[in-house]
């Protein structure tokens, strides 16, 4: 199982805090997972998740570029952070 989380503006725009997907070869890396989310969510999800400033994290660490995923991973999509 993969846990996918969305935060802040992305969560609101997708109207979805997160979802779970069964792990498998079709979601074996981050880019494949993102393509799967586009298929599942449609054009709106592609527009929101495909924005150039979207940050991706795997197991609570920000990643740049594509990385492999393993069963049990927690993946998050969020906009640039604005704390402090």
């Amino acid at each position: 199982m993969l846990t996918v989380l969305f935060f802040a503006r992305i969560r609101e725009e997708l109207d979805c805090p997160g979802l779970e997907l069964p792990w498998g070869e079709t979601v074996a890396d981050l880019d494949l997972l993102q393509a799967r989310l586009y298929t599942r969510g449609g054009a709106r999800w592609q527009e929101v998740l495909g924005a150039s400033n979207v940050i991706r994290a795997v197991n609570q660490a920000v990643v740049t570029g594509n990385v492999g995923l393993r069963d049990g991973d927690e993946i998050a999509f969020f906009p640039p952070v604005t704390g402090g």
Partner: protein
Amino acid sequence: MAMKSPFSPLLPVAEPGVGTVLAVSVQADDFDVAALQRGLLAGAHAEGAVACFTGYVRAANAGQAVSVMELEHYPGMTERSIRGILEQASARWQLLAASVVHRVGRLQAGDQIVWVGVASAHREAAFSACEFIMDFLKNEAPFWKKELGPRGAHWVEARAQDRARAARWDDDKPV
């Protein structure tokens, strides 16, 4: 190596970068900066210097009045991210203790939102590390601000100048 201190010879002194007392709290409740500073001093055995920063919710941002702010975060990653920043700071400067308290949830204009406290044997390290921690917290810790004012609600956009402030530490040599 632990340094000898003329002020508290009987108390152990944290070894720089190793024994540094690090603490992170992400909480809805308000905080008392005097109590936090006393706690930091206790952890640092009251050595040398403490530098603290407190951030407050602005009453106006980018020319628009702000009455309420909602702060969202990523539970788990937030604490992990801030702890990583404190570890970087304690590897870079000789610190005795470093703490961050950050509020989440619904806040009003003028409310305290973040506190950073650093204790060190010397003020240069305390000042520098405090600023370093704040600069990286603003750029890396997964918090998001939503401002609510008379003209409605909007998510605060990340600012290029905050990224630039964190980037300038890249070229700096450790103090």
